[in-house]
């Protein structure tokens, strides 16, 4: 973990009538982190973000931004955060620049630095040459990028990004993910919600897995996979394998399981990174000729499946399929 805690959520509950949208959720995000909230539709991600952005009061529990309580110190807390809502919250008939000017003023950015700040942001999101274009003439990806820029106009300490890549093409998605990484590299703390596993894995230092309002687990990907006992499996195909190598592998502490079937060797291990070179070296020393090595790293999907008995990926794929069909019909 890097810096000091900047978001502290403790026992957060949000009820809408009978429905418990967020159920006793606690987590901490440290300065400089990208923290992911991963969960399917209706998990309570947006609701959590809404409470943190002071949009809706919590039913119980506390949430603090940079030490400021979101209910008691709402106005001060709000100026610390940049919010990028799930929908494009911009004025479609105004130009990109006019939108940014407006949001800058709402955050009290001084007029003399505003224009400069906007130019800087427009080039960060690579839309400098479209500054004078109306938002409703922009593509989905361009709108999303201006939506993000609007959340950055006041140089916040923390940026909340609520599913910023829903419904856009893979290339634009990639550019947004890169943008988030770059912003983080320049020191911005990011709270990122998504129901795409790949995004959480690619982007986030730590991930909180949510489902039906509950926080099921929190940690780095490695921590999460180990916590459920998931192992990396290494498949090796090589000439000249013998049982001595199986015996040797079995004796290693990190190896949980070894099996050989002719030229195919399958190793399950809790530590993939440092083990692979050792195995390859040992095989070479023993005179075996390696044809291929295939490493299957356990991912958050297995963690989610383990925790909920449901698959997150199916839903994601359905989403993708739905988007494609829509594109065909649209």
């Amino acid at each position, binding site marked *: 973990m890097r810096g000091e805690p900047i978001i502290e959520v403790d026992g957060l509950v949000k009820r809408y009538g009978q429905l418990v949208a967020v159920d006793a959720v606690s987590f901490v995000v440290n300065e400089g982190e990208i923290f992911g909230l991963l969960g399917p539709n209706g998990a309570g991600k947006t609701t959590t973000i809404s409470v943190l952005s002071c949009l809706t009061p919590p039913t119980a529990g506390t949430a603090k931004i940079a030490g400021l309580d979101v209910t008691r110190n709402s106005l001060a807390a*709000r100026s610390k955060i940049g*919010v990028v*809502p799930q929908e*494009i*919250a911009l004025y479609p008939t105004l130009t990109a620049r006019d939108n940014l000017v407006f949001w800058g003023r709402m955050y009290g950015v001084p007029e003399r630095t505003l224009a400069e700040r906007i130019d800087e942001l427009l080039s960060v999101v690579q839309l400098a040459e479209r500054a004078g274009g109306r938002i409703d003439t922009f593509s989905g990806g361009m709108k999303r990028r201006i939506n993000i820029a609007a959340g950055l106009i006041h140089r916040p300490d923390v940026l909340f990004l609520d599913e910023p890549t829903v419904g856009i093409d893979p290339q634009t998605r990639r550019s947004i993910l890169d943008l988030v990484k770059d912003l983080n590299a320049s020191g911005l703390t990011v709270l990122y919600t998504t129901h795409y596993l790949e995004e959480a894995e690619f982007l986030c230092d730590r991930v909180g897995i949510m489902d039906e309002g509950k926080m099921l687990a929190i940690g780095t990907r490695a921590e999460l996979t180990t916590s459920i006992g998931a192992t990396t499996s290494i498949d090796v195909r090589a000439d000249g394998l013998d049982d001595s190598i199986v015996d040797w592998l079995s004796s290693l502490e990190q190896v949980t399981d070894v099996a050989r079937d002719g030229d195919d060797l399958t190793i399950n291990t809790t530590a993939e990174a440092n083990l692979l070179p050792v195995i390859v070296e040992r095989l070479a020393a023993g005179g075996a000729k390696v044809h291929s090595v295939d490493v299957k790293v356990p991912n958050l999907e297995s963690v989610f499946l383990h925790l909920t008995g449901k698959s997150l990926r199916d839903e994601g794929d359905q989403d993708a399929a739905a988007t494609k069909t829509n594109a065909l019909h649209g």
Partner: protein
Amino acid sequence: MMKALHIAIKDLRIRIRDRNTLVLMLLLPIGLTAIIGFAFGGDSGISSIGVALVGPEDGDLLTNAAAGLLSQVELFDAEVTTEDEAREAVASGRKSAAIVLPEGLIDAVLEGAPAEIAVLQDPASGIKARIVETMVERFATSASAGGIVGRAIFDAVEAERPITEAERWQLTGWMFQWMYETWSEPAIAIEEAEAETRDVDVHSYFAPSFAVLFLLFTMLASAKTIHEERESGTYGRLMASPVGRSTFIAGKLMGSYALAAVQVLLLIVLGSLLFGIDWGSHPVAVIVMALVTAAGAASLAIVIASVARTARQTDNVGTAFILMMSLLGGSMWPIEQAPASFQNVARFTFNYWAHSGFKKLVFYDAGLAGISQEILIILAMSIVFFGASVLLLSRRQVLT
């Protein structure tokens, strides 16, 4: 406060860049005024009013005298007909109105007995018919007065000696002459009566009506953005920024009001330029009336938006409400023709008072004092509506 102002400026900027807004704000009211002007008389105002005159069976003398009287007023084009013909002429629109003189009118006047002169009106030729009606009302007043004087003379003479038939006719003739003179050139002119002779042209009548009607529609579109911002997420984003709900509401009110003021003032200027409307000789009164009307319309629309739950509902409920109120309050037709009971109901509408104020400016050349009642009533309405909407918007969970 600065932030509220920026919200208002942003709203104005969005509105003014929107072509639909311009159509709604200026083109439609001006277009409709022009069309109505074409249909009912054109630029020159009212040049001539066709009147059918129906006399009693026994009263050719009276009928001819009345026709003579009417034809002395250039505005009227009188024609003596039977009652059936008159009805048909009015119904088909060939005549604006018909005057039906009852049996025994002279005797009734001389004896002080009640008599009724009926005025049949073509509903479509509103103002013209209204003018005829006013003339007849005034004639009836002079005639009643003349009757009283005549009877006094007869009584005085008869107390001394019997009156001969010749004297009787001579006296009656004098009386009619006197009635006509008091009618056509009243010795004591009340301001209203004098103003009646100002140019009553269709544009001057309808331009303010349509201005008020479309002002309400523009304001509805503007008030609706409260919901649109909520639905599009920009309101949420505002609430996640260091902007209070009250700042948002203040910004919306200011933006709406500014737009309303711009619209009314522009329509007044365009009315003069395009239709030659004479708004009277009290520019301050005109500006105050315009600004107060803007406040009334803006506040009314915001109240509708704060009662509604969605942008759509604001549109539907608001449109229905505005149309109803405009019908009732006379933004679409001259309600001066309606019975008094209807006009009493109309007094509860914003439109009624707005029209009343503009009519006094245009037709009676009223000053600030002359329209003070209208100004106070609309101001009171605005304060109540603005207050109610602020309460509704900040208390009710409209904005969550």
